[in-house]
């Protein structure tokens, strides 16, 4: 569900492998992401370009993972959000909670 793309000193870059992010995979996704956060304990940049639809269960799992990241004093940055998903984040103000970048280059520069 999540593949590890790059592991550098400053950050770890991840990529989702699912298309439809919903109740069927939200818990599993959260468990995988939290395990990665705990293991690597560094800034996590998550490329979500594989995701075409995200339901509220999955958004909840993503926010819970961010809360976990903040609690262990790290962060989750998002990249590759498709326009529909980015628009949803803006509509429900999740763009204020997550740092969102176009791609890995922008995220690492920021």
């Amino acid at each position, binding site marked *: 569900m999540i593949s590890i793309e790059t592991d550098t000193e400053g950050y770890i870059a991840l990529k989702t492998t699912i*298309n*439809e992010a919903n*109740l069927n995979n939200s818990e599993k996704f959260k468990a995988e992401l939290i395990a990665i956060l705990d293991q690597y304990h560094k800034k996590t940049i998550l490329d979500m370009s594989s995701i075409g*639809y995200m*339901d*509220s269960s999955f958004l*909840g799992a993503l926010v819970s993972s961010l809360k976990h990241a903040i609690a262990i004093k790290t962060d989750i940055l998002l990249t590759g959000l498709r326009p529909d998903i980015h*628009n949803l984040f803006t*509509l*429900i103000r999740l763009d204020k909670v997550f740092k969102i970048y176009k791609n890995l280059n922008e995220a690492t520069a920021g």
Partner: protein
Amino acid sequence: MPAKENKILLVDDNLLFLNIMVQAFKKTGWECYTAYSAAQAIEKLRLNVPDIILSDYEMPGMNGIEFRQSLMKLDGLKDIPFVFLTSLSDKETIEQGLDLQAIDFIIKDTPINVIISKLNNILLTVNKQRELSTLEVQNAAKALNIKSIPQKTPQINGISVDFWHHAYHDVPGGDFIDFIQVNQRFTFIVLGDIMGKKWMAWYFTFGYLSYVRSAVRFATLSNEFSPANILQKVNSIICLDDVLQDILSSLSLILIDTETGIVNYAGAGDLPLLHYKAHDAILEQVSTDGLLLGMFADVAYTEQKIVLNKNDQLFIFTDGMIDMAHEAGVKTDYEGFKQKLAGLLAQGINFDEIKKRLFNLSPDIVVDDQSIINIIKT
């Protein structure tokens, strides 16, 4: 042909046999997709979840039993009905499979039409069982007289309120609605959506609703009529409640003041509401900046003042109204919903007719609870 198109994943390393099966299943109205190995099946299952899996036993790499064992470790996939298709009929293999909660074994020589009938019957039984479990919980909820959706609308001077709600798959879910009439002058309107689906989300609606009701009542007892301040208090309490830890909810809180005709609105991670200005025949988005309830304890909420003129309307709704399944997959389309609604309102179509034309959708298209509240200044 099944009433609703059943979806099956066929797993077999014999591509010719797989093709024959696909043709036969499709002919009888099934939606089919295939994998020629267990590893490929697991990859495909991550993207696309079927109603049932029919898997060969003897395959190179991971065999059918190992495939089933892998699925048993995956939360979202272990409960999909699983049937073995095998040329083997030895007792040991069957016993091993049944230990792994495989629903049935079908011998490969069985005529394809018999295989399809058998799978149809399995799905009918599984669905019947699910319906019975649902019915039991529904009856228990009814007996306890707990409701997260009101039975009637409030009577407010100069304002008409109506709503429409449809539970996803007819199972109560995370949407909740409430109307709190403080007195002749003030009425609060509440629309929330617990992030999640079906029973698990539904269970938490009562915790949230209790806090919202209490916060409104305590506030109004102290002559406090600010939806933003009330939301802030609700959020602070929820963030302290261990039971609701990691349970997030959106909330739209609206206060109607019949004396001034002003509506005050504060939102927590909710979709922007829509304001139809009758005089100009335009539908405008009204946004606030509040974050989801339960996210962070120390966030501020602000409110919007909306002046309703004669025949103006407000529409407050949850994401189930804008998330729809299409052939290419599920899509969130706030703008599309807004445009359709604007088109109907411009023709002078009323809420009852809008319900029929815009909300009455096929169950295959709907992906979540759907709730919408309509407020009209009369």
